[in-house]
């Protein structure tokens, strides 16, 4: 019983740490990008300051807005936090990851997106509708690609529970599986599309012809905006942790000792920092693409996922 309680405590602490570190990742990413583009970077803590500033401001809400618009930020944020509880961050075998598996994780993302798109339509402006329409288009193409990549993993580990899957990869040791290479590439492409990064969407612009995510949240201000911004930082970090811990799980804590947990924190911070550098380099090198090229990009991701699946079935399956 005491053990159980301890495990739940660690799970909650892990989630709190996850939520607290998300803006730092965004700050680090921005810092890398500025450095690469010869600009002067804001402080690493700037995202925290922005969030604090937004929460202290008086929110201005459009007259047209209904309760959907007001409730959406809370739903989006809590759905994303729930997703963060499921993903093993610094330790595996936590009780929270048994309450929902990777398919439910995709469901949490769908939940948040559903309300974000409704909030975009609620105001009744052209921008909101445009953003919702594009977001739903991209996500409905990204979801099968993502599940294809994830199915490759779950079939290898024969579980959809993320914690057990990561343990499986750890136990197998360093094996180069062709299916994992394909699945990793597919998941990276999907992550870029789903978190609204270049080349699919540009988080730094309000140019009406290209924006997707920003178009939906144009009317938000104050604490509502803070919640949505924080949620999207969380989502970026979630994909980062998924990629880092599924494909490179080494360093994650398998026991709940202070030492192991400490190493776990260090390992994941290091992995995320490196991933962010790669993302910054990619964003600096690649230009944003036209909206109707995105389906080719995502079908490529799907194809990679499919190849991963087939190579698992043909090359690696035990029989």
């Amino acid at each position: 019983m005491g053990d159980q309680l301890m495990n739940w405590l660690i799970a909650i602490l892990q989630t709190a740490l996850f939520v607290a570190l998300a803006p730092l990742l965004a700050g680090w990413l921005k810092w890398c990008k500025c450095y690469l583009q010869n600009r002067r970077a804001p402080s690493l803590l700037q995202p925290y300051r922005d969030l604090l500033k937004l929460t202290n401001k008086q929110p201005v809400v459009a007259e047209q807005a209904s309760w959907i618009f007001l409730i959406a930020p809370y739903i989006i944020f809590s759905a994303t936090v729930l997703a963060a509880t499921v993903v093993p961050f610094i330790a595996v075998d936590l009780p929270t990851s048994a309450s929902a598996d990777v398919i439910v994780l995709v469901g949490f993302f769908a939940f948040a997106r559903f309300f974000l798109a409704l909030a975009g339509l609620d105001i009744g402006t052209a921008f909101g509708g445009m953003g919702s329409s594009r977001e739903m288009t991209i996500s409905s193409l990204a979801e099968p690609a993502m599940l294809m990549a994830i199915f490759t993993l779950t079939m290898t580990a024969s579980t959809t529970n993320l914690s057990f899957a990561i343990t499986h990869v750890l136990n197998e040791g360093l094996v180069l599986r062709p299916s994992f290479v394909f699945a990793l590439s597919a998941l990276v492409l999907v992550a870029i599309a789903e978190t609204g990064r270049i080349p699919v969407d540009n988080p730094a612009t309000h140019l009406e012809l290209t924006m997707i995510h920003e178009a939906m949240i144009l009317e938000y201000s104050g604490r509502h905006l803070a919640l949505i911004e924080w949620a999207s930082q969380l989502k970026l970090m979630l994909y980062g942790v998924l990629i880092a811990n599924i494909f490179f799980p080494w360093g994650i804590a398998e026991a709940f000792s202070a030492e192991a947990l400490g190493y776990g924190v260090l390992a994941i911070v290091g992995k995320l920092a490196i991933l962010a550098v790669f993302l910054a380099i990619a964003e600096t090198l690649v230009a944003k693409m036209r909206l109707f090229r995105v389906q080719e990009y995502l079908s490529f991701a799907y194809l990679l996922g499919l190849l991963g699946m087939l190579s698992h079935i043909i090359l690696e399956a035990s029989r």
Partner: protein
Amino acid sequence: MILVLAYGAVLLSFASGLLALLMNQRQAALEFSQFINEKFPGGNQCCRALLANCLEEKKFPDRLRKAVFVLLGLSGVFATLAGLSVLLSQQVVTDQLGLGLPWLPWHVRFDCLSGFFFLIIGIAVSAVSLYGPGYVNSYNDSQHPFAVLGLFTGLFVAGMLLVLLADDAFFFMIAWELMSVASYFLVAFQHENSANRRAAFIYLLMAEVGALAIILGFGVLASFSNGFTFDALREAHLSSTWASIAFMLALLGFGMKAGIVPVHVWLPEAHPVAPSHISALMSGVMLKVALYGLIRFCFDLLGDVQWQWGVVLLILGTVSALGGILYAMMQANLKRLLAYSSVENIGIIFMVLGLSMIFMANGHPKLAALGLLAALLHAFNHALFKNLLFLGAGILHHQTHQLNIDMMGGLIKKMPKTSVLFLIGCMSISSLPLFNGFVSEWLAFQTALQVDVLDNGVLRSLIPVAAAALALTAALAAACFVKVYGMIFLGQSRSHYCDKAHEIQDKGMLAGSALLAALCFVFGVFPGLIISLINNVAGQLLGETLPNEGALGWLWLAPVSSAQASYAPPLVLIGALLAAGICFWFLRRNPSTVMRRAETWDCGYGGLTPKMQYSCSAFTMPFRRIFSKVWIIDEQIKKDMQGAMNQDVAAVHYHLEVSDHTWPLLYQPIERAVNLTAATVGRIQTGNIRTYLGYSFATLILMLWVIS
């Protein structure tokens, strides 16, 4: 006892139909009551006063309508109780009724599978009969007599219940036809519109062709056995070819009723034109009766399923699911959209059923039980949320007098209660966690992921691809229902009908929808309640239950084993409430940051009009472009020019028509072939007596030659 409940449900629905016939017979009813009074002068005063009150001229139609729906509702309650009691006790009850032809008594059998579908019908009929009295008020005129509507509704429900009870092929077909023909009259109810007559004709045609295929299927089975009772048919030993032929016939027949692609075309025609509570019953329940027929035929009567049948179902299901949701997305008529979405959901059910067959034939009965359970659970969930959405569409039609979602908007403020109920329906059908649609889809994915146990390489790569198609379907469904909810309830109103709309006053209509919405949520958070019941169905039908039965608590759901996958919706709900509660409290503690309302940002130009919003076709434009091959798209933009050089645009006309590929590809060739054959055959009918005498003479000669 169980049979009494089941018979009670059937008889009550018959009685409700017959009672509706009294609508135009007030005089006769009066005379009858006087007759009773004279005959039994000492009767209960209270009863008599009540009867007299009901028969008053002004109140009579209203009272009668309520009485009809009360009987129908009781029938629903009886059906629910019958279903629950057989599912809980896991009995098999049989009976013989001395009806029909003298040497062919009707065999009745009530087992868990029938009981489960009784439960679906019972819940749906109860909700509909709460909803009905308020809704049929709009049919008060003589052109749409309530007597007809009530009579055929009662017969329709009775027909569906009898199909589930039937235990011989004759009785089954009689009940099946009762269901089909009664629903034909319901579709044709507002027959003054040519579209309705056309829809009803297509429906009847396809229903009869389907029935023919089912009869042939039974015939194939019967030719290998002695008799038409299901017991005899179960004993039949068919060669695998004949079994496959019987399966294909049954698939055609039941598939036509269930609405899988490409024999789905009656659905989007018939559902929009029937009254809303009838479309709810047809889409939510009647399609499930067809599913029952298929499961009964394949798993119970045929017995040894073959994996090729599973592959056929899997492929047809995938095509139906994807095609259904893509076509649904393009519709602007709400009920048409919901009809196509039924095609999608039936597709999902067929996919999972196919998986179940594949596992069954490959010697994994535990996994087959999982697949069957996922299919039945999705059927149950679909009945709940699709009924809810059709009832919601009925409320919208009642209040705004239209079904075109491009003409709605902003109703969330005018109809707050309806908007919440409809939102729950949309979230369930988009399979979001915490709602019931998600649970069945999760189980479907879990079934598909067990593919590693199969030996066949083709199956091992086909099934994950089907699972990815299922993921695409789910994502497209979410997009489709964001569109539906956004266009109807959010934004600004797009027509003056919507401006004037207000919340529905009738409590029954809200209560009927609220019942379904509450069930959607309850079974989303506590799926174990219903899954343990369905597990009994699988146990009785396949002799196997869930692989990991111990994990079926109220809290956890771990169908295969807790190491493979688990889902605990109550914990998720608690977590979500905690997270939302904490940030709500944290962010609102500062009183100086009270929210302020201001004008919507209009880029400084002033005056946002409803026309500036995204419309239904604008929202789906990216999909139309990406999946353009799926539809036949006719898109035209015309500009009216004016001015000196004819270069100022005065007006722009936009025309968009999206139609179904199956008509030109499948149905028009059939139509042409039928017409051609008719013309050819018609040629020998000259209308000339001499030719006919010649035919008779030739026939006579031929017969004489044959005999000698």
